[in-house]
């Protein structure tokens, strides 16, 4: 147990100490909020859908959690050859505990990052429907973080070198983000697009965040939770399998 705790604590310490990086990573969400939030506002309103800022803020929060959690897992790749991971893999600790500590740590950091973006959203003018919405939103952030931290670990364990990383970024992570309804509503989409977006786990996460924060939901909050939990369990199993197979 202490092994899991100390590895979890390590992820947190690393996050808290990277102050410059924390500020820099708020740049992208801020950009989306300001450019798209204010830019698409008039068009969205005219289409009768209300405020785009309100609509897109949960999407931006979800995006932050997605990227933060996936990168914590993919960071494994660099860590494997150069860092600390080798020390953990040769230690007399079962690998599953190492992976759990790292996944929980990565997920916690992703949630903290998400909370910072919530604050940024509030500063820019986003208003959740109630204060009680925040804890529920945190639950969804935790689910998204767990799903994608596990996916990140699965990928980081499997990849051999940094070239694969670019491929993953452009052909997996970006599509997951753009096809999740983070930036546009999922109602009334042409059928192929509707099909693809419903296969994206992040869609259910973003939907859950919207349900919690602004009260609109495409799939229903129960469906969201159920699907996220199932995918989380699946990916945790996949991640731990690949992690256990790492050969240095």
């Amino acid at each position, binding site marked *: 147990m*202490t*092994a899991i705790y*100390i*590895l979890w604590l*390590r992820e947190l*310490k*690393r996050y808290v*100490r*990277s102050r410059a990086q924390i500020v820099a990573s708020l740049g992208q969400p801020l950009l989306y909020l300001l450019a798209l939030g204010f830019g698409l506002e008039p068009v969205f309103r005219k289409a009768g859908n209300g405020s785009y800022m309100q609509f897109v803020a949960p999407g931006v929060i979800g995006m932050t959690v997605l990227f933060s959690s996936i990168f914590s897992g993919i960071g494994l790749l*660099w860590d494997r*050859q*150069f*860092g*600390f*991971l*080798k*020390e*953990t*893999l*040769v*230690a*007399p*600790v*079962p690998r599953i505990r190492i992976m759990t500590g790292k996944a929980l740590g990565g997920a916690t950091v992703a949630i903290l990052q998400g909370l910072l973006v919530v604050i940024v959203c509030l500063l820019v003018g986003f208003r959740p429907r109630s204060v009680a919405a925040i804890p529920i939103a945190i639950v969804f952030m935790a689910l998204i973080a767990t799903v994608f931290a596990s996916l990140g670990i699965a990928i980081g364990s499997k990849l*051999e*070198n*940094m070239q694969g990383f670019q491929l993953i970024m452009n052909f997996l992570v970006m599509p997951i983000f753009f096809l999740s309804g983070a930036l546009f509503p999922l109602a009334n989409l042409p059928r192929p697009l509707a099909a693809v977006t419903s296969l994206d786990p992040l869609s259910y996460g973003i939907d859950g965040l919207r349900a919690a924060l602004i009260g609109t939901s495409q799939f229903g909050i129960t469906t969201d939770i159920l699907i996220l939990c199932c995918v989380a369990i699946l990916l945790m199993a996949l991640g731990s399998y690949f992690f256990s197979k790492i*050969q*240095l």
Partner: protein
Amino acid sequence: MIKATDLVKTFGDFTAVNGVSFEVQKGEIFAFLGPNGAGKTTTIKMLTTLLKPTSGHIQLDGLDPTVQQNEARRRFGIVFQDPSLDGELTAYENMDIHAVLYHVPRRVRAERIEFLLNTFELWVRRKDLVKTFSGGMKRRLEIARGFLHTPKILFLDEPTLGLDPQSRNQLWTEVKNLNQSEGVTVFLTTHYMDEADRVAERIAIIDHGRIVAQGSSQQLKEQTSSESLEGAFLALTGSSIRDEKASSADQLRQMARMWGSKR
């Protein structure tokens, strides 16, 4: 303490280690000397549970590391060729994590960390982030960490690569002291002749996955009628330069050098 019998490791149709056998006595300092691509790192990885041998037997302190992995891991420490410290944590924190992972009892932890940091002259910098350390200091920290859980064996894979002579000298003095005082068996790989000559009690020269000669430095010089260990080494392994494909590890290492990680 360490016994390897007919170790073989093949990767596809490439044989990295081809029937290596040797024995290391308790408390001995034993060196594996060989050119690039000889199979040194592959052998160490097999001894330290990081790779499964294709065939052959290993015994570490009476245990088979392929069967009793975690039990065997408690008995040895290893310092890798590439740094495995967490640069974003302090020296003390790095030691602490190691202590937890290797089940060092809590009461003993603080004492042992203090003792080793003092031995390797890092106590004053214990609260500093490791990324601020020089290459020599990082190496010393890793070796201090390797001793933390009072292992029976310490594996060192090219431990002084890239260090200046003062650091190397100091490092070996401290390792030899701990070898004497705590009876730790030391197994190292290197291609620094003077080091193997000075530090190791027995040396095995490995080339193309096979042990070409074994014995003390004196014995090897006599065997090849050479004046120096380097002469013996070249006589046994030939003078041709070893070309190899840059592995993904080498590519990452180059990138790390580019991005300024000091060694």
